[in-house]
């Protein structure tokens, strides 16, 4: 039956190409949606793991990086650096603000850093050098047409875009990196913190280990030395943020991906059904020749699987093209289409979808009347 399926596909190349395209389009939609979901989680993970340190010191009870406010006493830094095994502790502060003119506002994540935890790489412009410098993610730059040198007004305070980075966004929100000088200037000008020693300026400490030190041991030592803090490894923190993201985005993405699979079943079912109807006569003849139901079902299954073999690489290619387009048009999003585990799961899902779709015209095949062979065409 494989040979018959192959022949049937190659006998009408245009029709086969068109059907492969229809299935490929559905596969591409599934892969793009899955890739978008994976991208959301990957961004959450990267927000933590690209900060450059193996350990994170946070307010006691805080076990997430983004989407939660953490406040450490400002003197916590000295106490942490005094712990054996700690190389250096770098302050980081993060919180959400909104940016943009009224009617076109977007949230951004303000990430304040000092000696570590800043943008991974600058793709345009310069890093932060002066107090009011800011480095923004390309997603924000693209959305508002910002270039290095442009003003960036946040909370009524005027920063200057020094440089643009890439891949620094999470929770559909681009990052804006500033230095502590800029933060303090912002607070002073907005008059909300005349006494900085009482003001929550410190969210996390990024801890680098001394040579030979063990992360777990150092973490425990820090927690003993600073009881008002909790210490997590970068992996632990990233995992918790991903879990939070899954809780938030999981239901809606699950609904969308489920819908895409449903469309896929209908599309494949439609294609196989149309084909089966067209070949109803041939199935009747096959029955007359002595073929059993299982042979004919094997013919349908073989054809469906061959169609998948054609459509899968097309679909992956199309998904990759769409993902690249989305990331180019809106750099705040990441769409991970070519991730091996994701592709494997998607392939399994698509196979199941194809077989479910092929089952739709089952009745037609089973009821193919062999006496149709005696009728004129």
């Amino acid at each position, binding site marked *: 039956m494989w040979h018959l399926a192959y022949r049937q596909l190659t006998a009408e190349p245009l029709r086969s190409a068109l059907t492969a395209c229809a299935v490929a389009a559905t596969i591409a939609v599934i892969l793009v949606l899955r890739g978008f979901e994976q991208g959301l989680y990957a961004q959450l993970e990267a927000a933590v793991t690209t900060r450059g340190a193996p350990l994170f010191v946070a*307010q006691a009870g805080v076990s997430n990086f983004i989407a939660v406010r953490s406040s450490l006493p400002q003197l916590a830094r000295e106490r942490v650096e005094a712990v054996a095994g700690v190389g250096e502790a770098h302050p980081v502060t993060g919180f959400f603000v909104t940016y943009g003119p009224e009617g076109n506002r977007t949230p951004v994540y303000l990430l304040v850093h000092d000696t570590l935890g800043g943008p991974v790489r600058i793709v345009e412009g310069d890093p932060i050098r002066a107090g009011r410098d800011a480095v923004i993610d390309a997603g924000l730059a693209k959305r508002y047409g910002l270039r290095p040198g442009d003003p960036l007004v946040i909370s009524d305070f005027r920063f200057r875009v020094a440089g643009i980075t890439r891949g620094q966004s999470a929770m559909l929100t681009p990052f804006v990196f500033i230095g502590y000088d800029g933060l303090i200037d912002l607070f002073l000008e907005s008059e*909300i913190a005349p006494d900085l020693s009482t003001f929550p300026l410190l969210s996390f400490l990024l801890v680098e280990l001394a040579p030979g030190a063990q992360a777990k041991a150092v973490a425990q030592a820090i927690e003993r030395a600073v009881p008002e803090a909790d210490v997590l490894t970068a992996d632990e923190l990233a995992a918790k943020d991903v879990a*939070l993201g899954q809780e938030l985005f999981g239901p809606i993405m699950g609904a969308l991906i489920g*819908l895409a699979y449903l469309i896929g079943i209908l599309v494949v079912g439609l294609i196989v059904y*149309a084909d089966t109807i*067209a070949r109803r006569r041939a199935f009747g003849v096959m029955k007359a020749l002595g073929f059993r139901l299982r042979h004919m079902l094997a013919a349908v299954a073989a054809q469906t699987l061959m169609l998948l073999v054609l459509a899968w690489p097309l679909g992956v290619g199309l998904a990759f093209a769409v993902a690249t387009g989305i990331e180019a048009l809106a750099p705040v999003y990441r769409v991970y289409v070519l991730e091996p585990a994701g592709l494997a799961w998607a392939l399994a899902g698509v196979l199941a979808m194809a077989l479910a779709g092929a089952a739709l015209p089952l009745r037609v095949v089973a009821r193919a009347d062999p006496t149709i062979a005696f009728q004129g065409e």
Partner: protein
Amino acid sequence: MLRWLLKTLWLQKASLVASAAGVAGAFVLVVILHAVFAGESRQMVAYVRHAAADVWVMQRGVVNMHMASSFVWAWKAKRIAELPGVRAATPILYSGTVIRIAGRTMIAYAVGLEPGARRAGPWAMAAGKAMPGRGEIVLPRVFAEMTGIGLGARVALTGKTLEVVGLSEGTYSMANPVVFVAASDLEDLMQARGTVSYILVDAQPGQDPAELAARIEREVDKVSALPQERFTRNDIQLAMQMGAEIIAFMTIIGSALAAVIIAFSAYSQVARRRRELAIAKALGVRNREIYAAVAAQTALITVLGLVLALLAAWALFPLLSALVPQITLVLTAGALWRAAAVALIVAVVSAWVPARYVARVDPLTAFKG
């Protein structure tokens, strides 16, 4: 030709229904994200709408609540309360946070209420008391449903363990569920001494809110004051803005998918009837008459798909929201018009493939066996 084509479609009802269903699915993909953002943005401003202050006062440069950070000196609330035209000024603390309930970690926004506060708390209760004291918390009822907890349960808010004393209605949204705690508990967590986040200002009867807002900004340094309506609109716009690009992408992707399905379906239909097309041509029917019939066919499949999609959305969205309370889906008139416009373009574009096929059918094949 049109009659022939429609009758042909009718003969293959199952195929027609499958095409329309596939197309409907693609259209639902187009509208669903808009419905999510529309639903979310309505839910997101539920607190602001129900708190119903005449004017909202916040840190200068801040214009909304969701995903914003605002610090205002607490004493400014007293200052504002003394201004002419102000009946009351109620400060609240407000912070995005993470809450741990029954082993699950979820995003929440905490509103810290002053002791004895009579407003700015929950507006409808499913169970328990509305105003939490120190060490207490009021959660959205949906949280309780999702996690299977009830009154008296203990939850963790960034290291503080609080007892659930009330379950509120209407305070849940996917991105902005609101929990209520005592201001002192939130102060500890935010380490915000002497500052508040927002001040809810109630105007004297007859006082114009816009005038009052302007007066507050003149008389009190470094604050923004916005009338309720504008403040609410800012949050809605923010949510829709966040979703604008995703909605646009999904519209394009869903439309492209719908076009491919329709083109394929229409092509299959005419390809199966090649002989009849050849006969029609041999009988003198012109190409453009056949094109018109084919275009009518793609239009019919498109319209059927759109109608099915809207019926599905209308019937299923509330059901989906009930089954999965995290998602609120709202189908707006704008989304419907957009879907209809997209459908029109899709129908026109997808007629191209079968039309090309029709052009190439040779009437001579009518004579062949």
